[in-house]
């Protein structure tokens, strides 16, 4: 981590056209994630084969159970919804050169915040929905802002602070769910159910939270590319010194971007509470923020691309249990596939980096001789 200035960013972009990592044309930018996913499925297929199951049967079961009927589709959309939000949260961070690993903590804090706003008040539906959603976002934004302020004004790496804030968030919500906000007269630590007026409805197989997630992604696709503030985000991410020279307040931008990132993760937590779980229960949000990192990298920091990336993860997570039911393969194979995908997405970046070192070495040795 650099220490030569309070607003130095550690994770920049070489590509002003918003994709993560090396400069690619549009074809390569789309092809690389797709090829990565296919490669991951191929390696996953080999693992499945060695468990004594035909990989094609396994993948057919996985996709059929997720996409083959309305129940599966509903669950895919339910599972994708928070992932779109956490993916977006990580994307916004990456745009300003920040690596927000704290989406999990921000989401969890917001999930319990929205639950409290949902059960503690009795308001007209529209007001209540807005209030609970907004309060959740506020919780997430506040949580992320701690890391944002520390980054901007004390140059503390957001990677470290967000990871630590994740742990603090777990302890905090466990405390709240088992004490302050606990549903009385039953032994499980969880909050009461939210009122009907704070519940996000599901229309047929389409949860309204999913629709919100789509709209928010599209909004950020526009915001990051077409607005002045979005331009500031990208500029700070690309070159904070140039940004400062151009009159952009780097500190303000970092704090703002982190708050926006936290609000997005928080929206994911709030929508999950209001649309799927109906209350806060600690283990129910496990992993959603971390999947967001995978999704953001798979989407190469493109807000619109988080939609298909999140849906892919949603399909895999939905199909995993049917996979075990039908074929006996352990559901964790899905985690292996996702990890491989991430590895293959990162591989071109890593390999280029290695080639560059080699090229430098060669040129140096040439210079000496």
């Amino acid at each position: 981590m650099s220490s030569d200035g309070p607003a130095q960013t550690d994770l920049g972009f070489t590509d002003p056209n918003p994709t993560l990592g090396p400069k690619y044309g549009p074809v390569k930018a789309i092809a690389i994630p797709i090829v990565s996913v296919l490669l991951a499925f191929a390696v996953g297929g080999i693992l499945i084969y060695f468990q004594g199951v035909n990989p094609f049967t396994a993948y057919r079961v996985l996709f059929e159970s997720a996409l083959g009927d309305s129940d599966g589709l509903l669950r895919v959309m339910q599972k994708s919804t928070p992932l779109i939000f956490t993916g977006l949260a990580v994307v916004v961070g990456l745009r300003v050169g920040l690596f927000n690993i704290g989406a999990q903590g921000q989401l969890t804090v917001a999930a319990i915040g929205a639950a409290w706003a949902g059960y503690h008040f009795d308001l007209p539906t529209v007001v209540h929905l807005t209030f609970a959603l907004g309060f959740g976002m506020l919780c997430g934004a506040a949580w992320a802002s701690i890391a944002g302020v520390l980054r901007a004004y004390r140059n503390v790496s957001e990677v470290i602070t967000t990871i630590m804030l994740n742990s603090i968030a777990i302890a905090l919500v466990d405390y709240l769910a088992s004490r302050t906000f606990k549903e009385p007269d039953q032994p499980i630590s969880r909050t009461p159910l939210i009122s009907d007026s704070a519940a996000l409805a599901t229309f047929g197989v389409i949860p309204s939270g999913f629709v919100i997630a789509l709209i928010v992604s599209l909004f950020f696709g526009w915001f990051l590319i077409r607005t002045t503030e979005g331009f500031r985000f990208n500029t700070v991410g690309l070159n904070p010194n140039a940004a400062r020279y151009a009159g952009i307040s780097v500190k303000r931008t970092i704090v703002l971007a982190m708050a926006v990132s936290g609000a997005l993760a928080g929206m994911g937590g709030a929508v999950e509470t209001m649309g799927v779980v109906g209350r806060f229960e600690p283990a129910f949000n496990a992993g959603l923020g971390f999947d967001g990192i995978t999704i953001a990298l798979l989407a190469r920091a493109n807000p619109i691309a988080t939609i298909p990336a999140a849906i892919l993860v949603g399909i895999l997570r939905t199909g995993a249990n049917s996979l075990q039911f039908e074929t006996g393969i352990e559901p964790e194979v899905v985690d292996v596939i996702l990890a491989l995908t991430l590895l293959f997405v990162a591989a071109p970046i890593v390999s280029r980096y290695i080639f560059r070192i080699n090229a430098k070495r060669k040129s140096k040795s040439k210079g000496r001789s």
Partner: protein
Amino acid sequence: MHRKLLVAGLTVAALVLAGCSSSDDAATDTTSAEATTEAAEETTEEAAEEEVTEESAPAVTMDDSDCAAPENYCIGLVTDTGKVDDKSFNQAAWEGTLLAADELGAFTKYVETVDPKDYLSNIEQFASKNYDTIVTVGFLMGEASVAAAAEFPGVNFIGVDQFQGETVPNLTGLIFAEDKAGYAAGYLAGLMTKTNKVGGVFGTDTVPPVLYFGEGYRNGIAASNPEADITIVYHEPNNAFNDPEWGAAEAKKQLTQGADVIFGGGGNTGNGALIEIAKAPDAGTSVFCIGVDVDQYNTVPQAQSCLLTSAEKKLVSGTSDLVLASFDGTFPGGNYVGSTGLAPYHDTEAAVPADVKIQVEEVIAGLDDGSIETGVVK
């Protein structure tokens, strides 16, 4: 420069992703600990030695395509979040299911829950395939089991560790009389103590099962050794099951005061006590600890040196009994109280005199047939 940092970032991402599974586990543990008192330290019964192997995993070659046919009997099991070989509730329930399936010549397989939001849909997978009996493991699945029982009235559901407030004919909660297990442990402790000082470190007495364990233990000691000086402490309600430091400190205090048999019960708090006692120089020869819920010899290996036994809920036999009852039409509905007892002595086998073993066995039998009362008011 940028790429270098990007690589660093991706490395961090990989590390975080690798770490996230463990933090998920932590969250789950805490929940179940606070919810049920069993927490992370749960173990299995004697049958635990028989490892869950590939053969016992759902076999693709076996057929469950026609569970509706009367000659085919199908049993499904849905685990709580966690694996089927967790040496704890999931594994014990699965072993009980396998035992019954063997006896009935029934087909059986399991699904492991990853996301608690999938409890109901995992149960529905079995029910919609016309499975005859479905076992759901763990307190946290209670609501999903009730919902599934209402949705599929033709299927019998066994809720392991799920107390039923209302009686539904096709749903039976497998619960346990903790006071009996505590009483048996106390009876043994009273006979084993040389210093006539016996201790106990528990999670909060505001959670009924913990109170029953503790007070049953107290009465058991008094029954076998009326002279014994009994010190039993309960944690305050907040963080009752996740405070191993407190458990260790209390255990140490009791050791210095001369206690030579100490019961540790209450999630990580109790485990903290057990692990502390295991560090005593005389652990296993003149200083002993007693575990709770399942055979903690398997779940808390650090405590093996002092572990005399565990006040055990017999999950394997309880699950198996209920599956058999479901098969032969005597499914009780409501709550079924499984038997309780003590886990094997393991390493302390030689330290326990033969006559003590016999006396304890008689007491356990007496508790089982009701001729001995624990005196714990529920």
